[in-house]
């Protein structure tokens, strides 16, 4: 009975909403449906990973540009935040009092200040106060830094560069093979063969040799200082840098807490047993504690990654052209089709979240401790 009432209420609300929306939209002469998708966009985007031009590309193309920008900044943020988060999380557990306190201070400071404020700080207070074009800083390696962004040398690949890539693939495969052999050897004989140097030689040496043999098929086109602009090179927008920095600094604090909780969840007996077996403290951490801690760490770590992806939508505040800024901002303002645009934007984030939680459930199922 109650259920029928709920269905009726929800249905009634939905009907009322749709009815009113249709009424209000027709009054404002706003079209509905995705007819705008193929219309010419007519606005510029400051960072495009795929070919895009204001005069010929469609709104649909702008959507993909925005989505790729979101994924780019989220990807960079996730890599940086993971590295920093693990370092800080383990530092918080350090026996060195100063190191532990320093890491703790970082976590408390960063976690208790809103991300938006940190983002504005990096963008307006740090990056905007870099030198102007005329006083650009020349960084080692030919990079140029000023308040319009960071200009890096652009790699230019010659035709036979593919041999180097091939060599790299072979090298990585060789290192993996070496690792498999070492594990097999360890399990058979107990001897622990040192494979670090051979593996590194395989990963880096092979491509280097291929690089030399192919006649150095790579050169860098350096950014040049022009009178009004910097020409050439790869441009890293200040908006991108600020967003990536803010996201990774902020998320690193949360990842540090996740890592700390995960390591603490491994019972102390494991550490003591490892030490009793004569493992050094680095080995204890790497071979005994972390593999067990990972089981606890990975689920909350994934949700931190999802938070980072969702938080990348703050891009809209500083004008980095991510999905929300391009699509739910500019496209929405031009077309006025709020319902379609917002629904599609939400659907993208929702799809990412749902996909991740499906993968997570698979992982959790795969790593369940086999209880005896």
């Amino acid at each position, binding site marked *: 009975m109650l259920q029928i009432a*709920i269905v009726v209420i929800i249905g009634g609300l939905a009907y009322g909403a749709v009815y009113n929306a249709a*009424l209000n939209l027709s009054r404002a002469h706003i079209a509905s449906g995705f007819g705008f998708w193929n219309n010419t966009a007519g606005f510029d985007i400051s960072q495009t990973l795929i070919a895009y031009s204001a005069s010929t590309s469609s709104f649909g193309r702008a959507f993909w540009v925005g989505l790729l920008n979101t994924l780019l900044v989220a990807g960079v943020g996730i890599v940086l935040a993971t590295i920093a988060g693990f370092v800080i999380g383990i530092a918080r557990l350090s026996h060195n009092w100063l190191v532990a306190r320093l890491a703790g201070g970082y976590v408390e400071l960063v*976690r208790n200040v809103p991300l938006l404020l940190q983002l504005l700080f990096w963008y307006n207070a740090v990056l*905007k*106060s870099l030198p102007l074009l005329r006083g650009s800083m020349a960084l080692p390696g030919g990079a140029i830094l000023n308040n319009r962004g960071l200009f890096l040398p652009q790699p230019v690949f010659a035709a036979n560069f593919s041999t180097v890539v091939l060599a790299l693939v072979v090298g990585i495969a060789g290192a993996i093979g070496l690792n498999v052999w070492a594990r097999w050897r360890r399990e058979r004989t107990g001897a622990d063969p040192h494979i670090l140097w051979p593996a590194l030689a395989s990963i880096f040496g092979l491509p280097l040799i291929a690089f030399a043999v192919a006649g150095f098929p790579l050169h860098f086109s350096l950014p040049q200082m022009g009178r009004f602009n910097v020409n050439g090179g790869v441009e890293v927008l200040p908006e991108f840098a600020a967003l990536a920095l803010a996201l990774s600094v902020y998320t690193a604090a949360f990842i540090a807490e996740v890592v700390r909780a995960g390591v603490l969840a491994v019972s102390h007996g494991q550490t003591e047993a490892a030490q009793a077996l004569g493992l050094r403290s680095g080995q204890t951490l790497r071979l005994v504690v972390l593999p067990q801690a990972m089981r606890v760490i990975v689920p909350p770590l994934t949700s931190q990654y999802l938070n980072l992806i969702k938080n990348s939508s*703050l891009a809209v505040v500083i004008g980095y052209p991510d999905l929300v800024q391009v699509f739910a901002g500019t496209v929405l303002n031009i077309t006025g089709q709020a319902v379609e645009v917002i629904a599609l934007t939400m659907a993208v984030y929702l799809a990412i979240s749902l996909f991740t939680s499906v993968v997570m459930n698979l992982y959790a199922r795969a790593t369940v401790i086999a209880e005896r």
Partner: protein
Amino acid sequence: MSAISDQAYLRVLPAQKLPPPAERTGIFNWLRENLLSSPTNIVLTFLCILLFAWAVPPLIRFFLIDAVWSGTDRDACLASPAQMHPGACWAFVRVWVSYFVYGFYPLAERWRVDLFFVALTLGIVWLARLSTPRRDLGALYFFVGLPILSFILLHGAPLIGLPVVPTSLWGGILVTVVVATIGMVFSLPLGILLALGRNSEMPVMKLAAVGFIEFVRGVPLITVLFMASVMLPLFVPEQFAPDKLVRALIGVALFASAYMAEVVRGGLAAVPRGQYEAARALGLTYWRMMGLVILPQALRVTLPNIVNTFIGLFKDTTLVFVVGVFDFLRTVEAARADPKWTTPNTTVTGYAFAALFYFVCCYGMSRYARSVEAHLTRAGRR
């Protein structure tokens, strides 16, 4: 008797406790154990001290020693022969601080805002202190009385002689606190209902609750706010279109309730099954069982998590910025753009002030959550 006297020596009194050996105590030992126990540790300690020496003195100099504390316009904070390298421009904050707190709320009516802050503090203390009497009355006050009282106070009621102050004049910390409080007041009951729905045996309820929770948790708050501010006016008849602040409030409350629901669900899961069965055996109906037996226990164990969610909500209130509501951060942004105060240090000072405000609030709440957690652990151990 003889068995005892056969012993050569028998100690009757316990031995006196000896202090730990000298090399295990004292400041030098502490230093050795905590900072200098191995070569790696010595290097780490050294690096930390270097980092401190590099970062802390310039910060102290900038924010305290070289800071400019008073002045009426930018000249006070610009470099002058008297002060070659002026630090933080606190004079700017002092001049703008009433705007940071009240926004454009009319000067003559600001006592109403102050009264609201007092009423809110009373409610928070009543609820937050675990030893205060009649916390059930406190909850009634906080979740029913306070919202009505605040609405009358802040918005105004011409009937009793309080002129209406439109929300477009509200701003600053007032708006931040209003958004956070409304978010809390609505998200907790909604979250409880959603959590009960998610645990319900009725498939329709379960589906509706799960759908709502997973949907809201899967999308960024900004898109929810956009939805509230752009789509909400479409979904209601034209004459009922809510104003900007109300739209943002609805967005924040719905968003927070999905997160609150998950927290409450965790608390429900922590109540032993026997409690449900015992309540059923006593013949309690579903609502009486939940209200009298399950929820009091569930909310109690999950109070630290509720506070942590609230900290997240408090930080998220800054996002109402993007839909044009003048919260505290937005007023700082507006003030730092004031040409009268354009100096190289205005921006940093404004942000430092904002960061201090948020840090004090959030850190205070997280300390509170931790103390409650410790209290609960002690109570559980007994």
